[in-house]
């Protein structure tokens, strides 16, 4: 049996880049930090708040997300949206993921 620490280390390594792709895909429809955190959690992409919030800023700085303050509601919230560049990156990453998936299936079929 694998011990928990070893398992969580490897799972974390395997999932590291997937949060970015998930964000880019979800934010094709504008959303704000906490709602995104909740959505990711429910879709099975467990990520800490203190990782996600800085990540959103970084992606925005890289031009992959755009943001707007929504002050219409009682609580002003910063809404993020995947930019054109972000959509292009999401497509590339998705294709790469699919290729990896195919490659892994081939490997599993061979053994």
């Amino acid at each position, binding site marked *: 049996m694998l011990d928990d620490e070893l398992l969580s280390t490897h799972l974390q390594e395997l999932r590291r880049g997937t949060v970015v792709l998930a964000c880019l895909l979800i934010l094709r429809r504008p959303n*704000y*930090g*906490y*709602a995104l955190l*909740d959505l990711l959690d429910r879709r099975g992409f467990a990520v*800490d*708040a*203190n*990782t996600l*919030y*800085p*990540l959103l*800023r*970084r992606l925005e700085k890289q031009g992959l997300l755009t943001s707007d*303050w929504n002050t219409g509601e009682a*609580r*002003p*919230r*910063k809404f993020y949206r995947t930019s054109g560049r972000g959509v292009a990156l999401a497509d590339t990453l998705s294709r790469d993921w699919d290729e990896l998936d195919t490659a892994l299936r081939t490997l599993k079929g061979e053994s």
Partner: protein
Amino acid sequence: MTTASTLTDRYVDAALRHLPARQRPDIERELRASIADAVEDRLDAGGEPAEAELAVLTGLGDPARLAAGYADRPLHLIGPALYLGYTRLLTALLVTVVPAAAAIVGLMRGLRGDVTVARLIGDVLGAALTAGVHLAFWTTLVFVIIERTATARRAATRPWTPAALPEPPSRRARYGELITQSVALVLFTTFILLSPTATTRTDAHGDPVGILSPRLWESGVVYLFIAMVIVALGFSFAKHYLRWSVPLAVAGSLADIAPAVTLIWLAVTDRVLNPAFAEAAGWSPGVPRWITTGLVAVSAVSLLHTVTEGITRARHR
């Protein structure tokens, strides 16, 4: 709710303190909204306000860590890209400069005379410690700054190539050096030990007058010096046959430095040549001075060689 809101205020303040001023208003607004959203979510699920706030802030973790994430700052002093270069340079400096600094201080104190042996050893150890602490501190500081400067970091991290591999020590060439050193030692020792009797000059009683000062024998310094040279030769063999290690490198550097420093000390204090011999040989006063200067120069070159070779060996181990 007052105590709970104070807690959030303190958290947000603590996080913003580590951020550049122009980023603060936007991040503060967003962070407060995110915390409020999370607290609200917990309250909707039937939680206590104070407990909800506490749980949300606990979940966000150390505000300094969150701020480092926002500012894209590393949470380490020296990262993996620079670490090897850092340890290599630091080791190379420590194993060479520290013994050299200690030797030079020992020489200066010894030259001034009128110090006890215990005091001298204390000064030398103090100098070694000071030199080591300074080297470690300043080297670390430079690397910490490089780590935090994007352009410097790119310049400092060159891709590794096989050309940087340690040179296989050409055993034959090195062996030649060792043989030369051994032969030189035998000739040199023979010359020193025979010099009081096998000489070209005699005094008024017909007794031989050696070229080297008789005080060297009276004080036993000559035997100490020969012992140092033999120890240095021993370390040359050790360095040839053993793998590089910090203790060996430090001991080897010290063993090389000790006879050179001793010789400088003897030459500068006029304890090498026998004045009676110079007189008997009819030397002009300039001759002993030139010999003394030559001895100091040779020793200084040997010291320099020890330091440069030590650095090269430490870097290419």
